[in-house]
């Protein structure tokens, strides 16, 4: 901590409790920040690509999760270092915006920082570096748009979408079933997609997990699955041509929100109230029944008596349906959510082909399946797997695949994977570097080197020699003018990614490069870190 002294040799107090604060300045701060961020990138590096490895994360409570998803890894690592936390946010914003490529973005940022470190050692000012990166980034993005291809997502039974989903799933533990799962994800997204508006509301795809069975048993339900059973054990377990009454009021005597007291002062009052209460239940059930509904789904609980009356009136009912499920059912079946019994009318009922109770395993767990809904605008993916960890990881993987498909529906331009797009951009940036006359030239060139880091990292993870394979791919890209040459990760005998059909969305790639550059620029601008000492 540097101190300023006044004329009498007493130190000025500039920061409160400054003796107890840690402070790093200048080059020391740059380097420390970069090293911390690189440490995160190094951890993620081995997860990149189809042959990437997984990470095992033990939570503070001892729960274990195994994952390959960049955003999940950095989130669960519980990172403490302030600059490293920036990378966590980077990965998460890629996850929120695109949903896929969360590992790639962190690795790219790591590579950029690595380059920045050597540039700093050369004595180039950090702002010059970040300016150079910025310009290089623009060039790379422009080139990406040039090499991007539009694909027809509907051709050949949505083959392109399935391939893109497979690319996203290829790096995960579920990769042996990537084709099946890819198809499930594509069907799910297309079921709920609004193709005219080119938009997909992902809320309509519900992902439900259940341990047991195997990943193969994962299936798509063209309807909704809710983790509930009928309120009375003797109600019908299956309703066909269901007319659904969706309630958000309990089958109980009303509870007005204002505080009140009803005083019973004599026996008549007592009897009257009793009558009234009985009448409530009868009225409630009658109102539901009269509307023509043959099943009632309720967000709240039932009184025993009301429950039995429902059974007596052949009205199967489900209680404690969660709020999100209620909304989903409303969207899928066209039902209106009814907050009061008095407002039940036949028009407000939702329709579904069938509702039935299904049972899993030996431990007597039951779920309700609502199928063939009137407005089929909601689907459920039921994920099965040998253990909780596999199921959780499969859920994350399918989420990634769904995001990729959604992005393709929004914007059908793709670039090819396998590091080919990065390599093509690197070549372009390198060419541009020579045109820059100022100090930034070095930064631009380093940017190209950083981009090359991605294919080299891919090659490394696949057990190939990174230097040879990247060099080969680079020379072929130049000599054949083919930006689709990448790394042959799966050992298929071709390096043309079009033949391997490794698709990635343009939006994801663009976002990756932009986000990574931004974060690196931000880290490079920090020249002073002040933190409490014990932090």
């Amino acid at each position, binding site marked *: 901590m540097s101190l300023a002294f006044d004329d009498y040799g007493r130190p000025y107090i500039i920061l409160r409790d400054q003796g107890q604060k840690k402070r790093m300045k200048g080059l020391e701060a740059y380097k420390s920040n970069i090293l911390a961020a690189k440490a*995160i990138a190094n*951890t993620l590096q081995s997860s990149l690509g189809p042959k990437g490895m997984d990470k095992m994360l033990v*939570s503070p409570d001892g729960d274990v999760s195994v994952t390959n998803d960049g955003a999940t890894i950095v989130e669960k*690592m519980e990172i403490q270092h302030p600059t490293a936390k920036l990378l966590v946010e980077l990965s998460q914003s890629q996850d929120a915006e695109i949903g896929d490529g969360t590992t790639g973005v962190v690795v790219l940022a790591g590579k950029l920082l690595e380059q920045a470190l050597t540039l700093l050692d050369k004595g180039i000012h950090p702002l010059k570096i970040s300016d150079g990166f910025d310009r290089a980034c623009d060039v790379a993005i422009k080139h990406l748009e040039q090499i991007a291809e539009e694909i027809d997502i509907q051709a050949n039974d949505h083959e392109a979408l399935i391939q893109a989903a497979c690319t996203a799933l290829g790096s995960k533990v579920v990769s042996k079933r990537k084709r099946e799962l890819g198809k499930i994800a594509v069907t799910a997204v297309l079921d709920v997609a609004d193709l005219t508006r080119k938009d997909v509301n992902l809320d309509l795809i519900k992902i439900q997990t259940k341990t047991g069975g195997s990943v193969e048993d994962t299936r798509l339900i063209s309807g909704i699955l809710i983790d509930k059973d009928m309120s009375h054990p003797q109600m019908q377990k299956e309703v066909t041509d269901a007319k659904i009454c969706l309630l958000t009021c309990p089958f109980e005597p009303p509870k007005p929100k204002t505080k009140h007291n009803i*005083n019973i002062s004599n026996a008549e009052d007592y009897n009257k*109230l009793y009558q009234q209460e009985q009448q409530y239940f009868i009225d409630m059930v009658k109102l539901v029944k009269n509307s023509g509904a043959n099943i009632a789904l309720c967000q709240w609980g039932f009184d*025993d008596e009301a429950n039995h009356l429902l059974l007596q009136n052949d009205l199967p009912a489900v209680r404690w349906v969660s709020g999100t499920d209620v909304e989903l059912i409303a969207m899928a079946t066209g039902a209106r959510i009814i907050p009061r019994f008095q407002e039940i009318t036949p028009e407000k009922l939702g329709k579904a082909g069938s509702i039935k109770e299904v049972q899993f395993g030996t431990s007597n767990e039951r779920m309700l399946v609502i199928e063939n809904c009137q407005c089929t605008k909601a689907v459920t993916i039921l994920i099965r797997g040998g*253990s909780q*960890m596999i199921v959780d990881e499969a859920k994350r993987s399918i989420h990634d695949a769904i995001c990729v498909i959604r992005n393709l529906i929004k914007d059908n331009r793709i670039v090819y994977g396998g590091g080919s797009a990065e390599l093509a951009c690197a070549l372009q940036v390198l060419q541009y570097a020579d045109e820059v006359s100022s100090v930034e030239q070095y930064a631009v060139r380093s940017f190209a080197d950083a981009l090359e880091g991605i294919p080299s990292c891919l090659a490394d993870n696949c057990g190939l020699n990174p230097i040879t394979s990247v060099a080969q791919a680079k020379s072929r890209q130049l000599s054949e003018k083919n930006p689709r040459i990448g790394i042959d990760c799966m050992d298929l005998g071709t390096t043309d990614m079009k033949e391997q059909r490794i698709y990635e969305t343009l939006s994801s790639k663009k976002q990756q490069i932009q986000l990574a550059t931004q974060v690196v620029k931000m880290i490079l601008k920090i020249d002073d870190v002040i933190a409490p000492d014990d932090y």
Partner: protein
Amino acid sequence: MDIVGNVLPQVLKDEATEDKGEMARLQSFVGAIAVADLVKTTLGPKGMDKILKPTGPGQEMTHITVTNDGATILKSMYVENPAAKILIEISKTQDEEVGDGTTTVAVLAGELLREGEKLIQKRIHPQHVIAGWRIARDVALKRLRDISTENDINSQEFHDDLVKIARTTLSSKLITSDRDYFADLCVKAVLRLKGSSNLDYIQIIKLPGGTIRDSYLDDGFILKKQITIGCKRRIENAKILVANTAMDYDKIKIYGTKVKVNSMDKVAEIEAAEKEKMKHKVDKILKYQPTVFVNRQLIYNYPEQLLADSGITVIEHADFEGMERVAAATGAEILSTFDAPERSQQVLGHCDLIEEIMIGEEKMIKFTGCKKNEACTIVLRGASTHILDEVDRSIHDALCVLITTVKNKRVVWGGGNSEMQMAAACEEEAKKVQGKQAFAIEAFGRALRQIPTIICDNGGYDSAELIQNFKVELQKGNYTCGLNMTDGTIGNMSELGVKECLRVKEQALMAASEAAELIMRVDDIVKCAPRKRERA
């Protein structure tokens, strides 16, 4: 410090640790194999049991469990190693999904990892090992399905199969000497469910005393409750009303009600009204003309007396599951309102005889000759609660397997036959595959073969010799051979009647390979700093 000599800033929290590459892999192998080795000795008909002793003050000697059941053992262990936790997790899932094979699944996963470790030492990349395992798994699964057989659900053969499966499952348990008896008992119980898979309808009552042999399946239904004093102890041709309603005092449910009176007279009046209301309810119940009234909730003396006066036998405070079972057995509807006496025919349950019986020293109520014979009761007797608990777990395993078999119908030969056949399939496949994966496929076969090997070892036989002879027999085309664990020879499984359910084997194979793959893929373990807890 990194290579260049820079001091690396601390990125993770203080007590967090990160292991990378070989260290991480070593850690998971060691943990997973340790867990597998722990349960290994319980495998097979000659497997040994474990004593589980709880920790914590005052409990040391009280709640001891003696068991042979893999899931129970693993569930009660506290492990720190994350890979070991994964193994425990799959064992639990196996228990929930099929109920048996919980030891097998953990041992198989452990053996796979043991083989995997050797491959890694040979410098084969984990991803290649996984690729090989995936091929091997599919081949093994295909072979397993090919060798399975299916019988019609109503045929005598199917029934025999069920008995054989139950015998096989029970043979590794404490009650192995009485397995014929219990196998028969379990099959009868499961067949009564008529294809439904709701295990709740089979009630297991454990009563210390007598010997294991005194256990029996009651064709009626037993409720662990007593008939209220002053009622008939034996009712023939009973009409049963099953209710879930308040019979203590029927309070008004309208929100915010309060009794507020200004004189003693009024209190008496309201009391009378309350009494009247209860009487009214009882009257309504009486209109259904039941002879027996079963309620889930408490019944106060007044309504109890009213009911008893009308000659109705009252059973109060039945637990909810018990009620559901009574309802299922007698075909009654569970009532909470009593305004439709005209439906009495539909809602009342029926059974030929209800009587209070004594089992050991406890009084219970037995319902015989029920209308819908779905529910039934298994009464277990035994010398101590520990034995009873273990018998209960064994019976539970057997019931689960039987239910799974009834659903799935396909069976395979036991005695290590299916594992050996799968191993053979893997070895054949390994010869055809090009590349490094072939090593992994072979390794998968070896891991599968470990299961019968361990069974032999646990029986004290010469496993090397037996397994080789076994291989030869299979090679000769004798597809029904298997381990005869009583003589320590290779026997004919169809003569010995050792069968197992396909679904259990399938699930064990898939879950174990999935778990092994999951652990194999890990190259980095990050342990977060443990959450600080305030000591209470």
